[in-house]
């Protein structure tokens, strides 16, 4: 079973290589296989989570390794869904960026920062609310990855048409990710904390950073509302805020876990 994450990692590398080749081709046609490779990687990562869950008798999402694997799984699934959907323009760079992010997460999961030891959860972590809290937080953050990639692309191109497409992807990603993240990270997190410790909110560094992340994406949505009223294009500022929001999610996960201590220092 320990070969599954490696196999998934190789599939994602292959997917990234195929995408890179097609990105540099002149005709700019979408490749026919990279999304299926990512989809297959997602299945393998789901098998990793399922196996570990059976092993510990509880949904395996509470450790750093499992969180990283799940995050990568959602990103792979998201790239597949993005490629298959028809409502939004397909921009290969967005798929490529999300694939690289999944690759980076799996790389970290195989490092000493994320011990692979399968440990059953301590009493406070044995909660359905916690599982929903963690799962939805990462689903929301996966959409924020897409928004980050689209925003970076938006800021680095000058073509009006392309900017509009990237802006649309960024906004749609936040529009989906924001409610999922809010419900998962903040609402379900607060409900879990109340049931476990009798306090909805403790201003723990992770909670504070999750709130900061939420405030930054709230700012993004409000800036768009204001700017939409003034001009057709939302402008660069929301894109900069989307990039800042994603950096906040990165610090919330890695920075708080490894640099600050608090109630969430176990995962």
């Amino acid at each position: 079973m320990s070969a599954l994450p490696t196999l998934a990692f190789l599939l994602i590398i292959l997917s990234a290589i195929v995408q890179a080749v097609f990105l540099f081709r002149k005709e700019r046609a979408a490749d026919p296989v990279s999304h299926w490779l990512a989809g297959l990687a997602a299945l393998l990562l789901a098998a990793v989570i399922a196996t570990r869950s059976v092993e510990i008798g509880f949904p395996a999402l509470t450790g750093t390794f499992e969180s990283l694997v799940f995050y990568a799984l959602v990103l792979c699934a998201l790239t597949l869904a993005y490629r298959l959907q028809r409502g939004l323009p397909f921009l290969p760079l967005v798929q490529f960026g999300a694939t690289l992010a999944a690759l980076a997460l799996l790389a970290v999961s195989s490092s000493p920062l994320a011990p692979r030891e399968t440990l059953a959860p301590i009493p406070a972590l044995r909660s359905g609310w916690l599982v929903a809290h963690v799962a939805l937080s990462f689903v929301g953050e996966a959409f924020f990855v897409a928004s980050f990639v689209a925003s970076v692309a938006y800021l680095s191109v000058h073509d009006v048409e392309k900017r509009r497409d990237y802006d649309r992807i960024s906004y749609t990603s936040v529009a989906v990710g924001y409610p999922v993240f809010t419900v998962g990270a903040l609402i379900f997190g607060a409900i879990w904390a109340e049931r476990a410790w009798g306090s909805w909110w403790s201003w723990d560094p992770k909670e504070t950073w999750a709130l900061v992340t939420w405030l930054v994406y709230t700012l993004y949505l409000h800036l768009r509302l204001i700017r939409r009223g003034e001009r057709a294009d939302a402008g660069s500022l929301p894109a900069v805020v989307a990039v800042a929001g994603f950096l906040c999610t990165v610090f919330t996960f890695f920075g708080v876990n490894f640099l600050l201590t608090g109630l969430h220092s176990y995962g």
Partner: protein
Amino acid sequence: MRLAVVLIVYMAIFSLLASLIPQSQDRSFYAAHFPAPLAWIITGSGFSAFFRSPLFLVPAGLFFINLAVCTVDRFLRELKKQERRHGPDILHVGILLLCIGGLVSFEGRQSGSVLLSNGDAVRLSTDRVLEMTDFAYRAYPDGRPEDWTSTVRLYSGSKVEIPSYAIRVNHPLRLGLLSIYQVSHEIQRALVLQDSQGGVHSLARGEETQAGEASIQLLDPGKPGESASVRIRDASGERVAKLGVGDPVGTMTVAGVRELEFSGLEAVLDPGFPLVLASLIIAALGLFLTFFQKLRSMGVTTA
């Protein structure tokens, strides 16, 4: 909306800074860890307890007022439209309620913890008494805790209100606004006293019990083979005494000092509980209504 944007930026930046600067420490801590002018600013401005200081509460109050006005304004504007979208209004009402609930909770929340072993009881209010009938501790093969369960019985006056309830981590006992949580487990040396009817009472360090006219508080259970130190208060006054097996104390007799399992329970009385819970549900509903309507209007579908 521009004021809201300014307040959101302020709260994001200052919350972020507050997470990086240790909170609620003594002045000496900041003096030792920061340059003198910065330490003076942190303690003098209230930044050392940012989330309880005017630095946070005043902007949060302004945000509340701004959001309330925006919500009413937006709601009235939506009423005039053919195709109404009330998702943001519902979300904003949820956030407003959350602010109120948070404030009620912040002002009125009371909590206290107690260590109970099997047979121990604690008075929750003038007429309610919680008795622990059983405590079970399960551990994984590697020794880490798997679960703690305190089975309790609740008396209301002389009547049994709840015959049996298992309080576990993540499964508190709810009694209206009062909740009892399972928070810890300890093994402690305890003084065991036996009353004239054969009833057994265990005292952990610092705990107090009545033995007839005398009140007995365990100061130190002592090491194995040693006597326990207790404080006795009775009609003759207050004194510290050493007690060994068989010694009488008030109407009881010392049965020994034993290692007992204690369950750590925390009682929380939170008048903001129903408001906060309702606000979270309303906010979640508002969020999804907002974004489903928005996505539908944007025509996002899958092939």
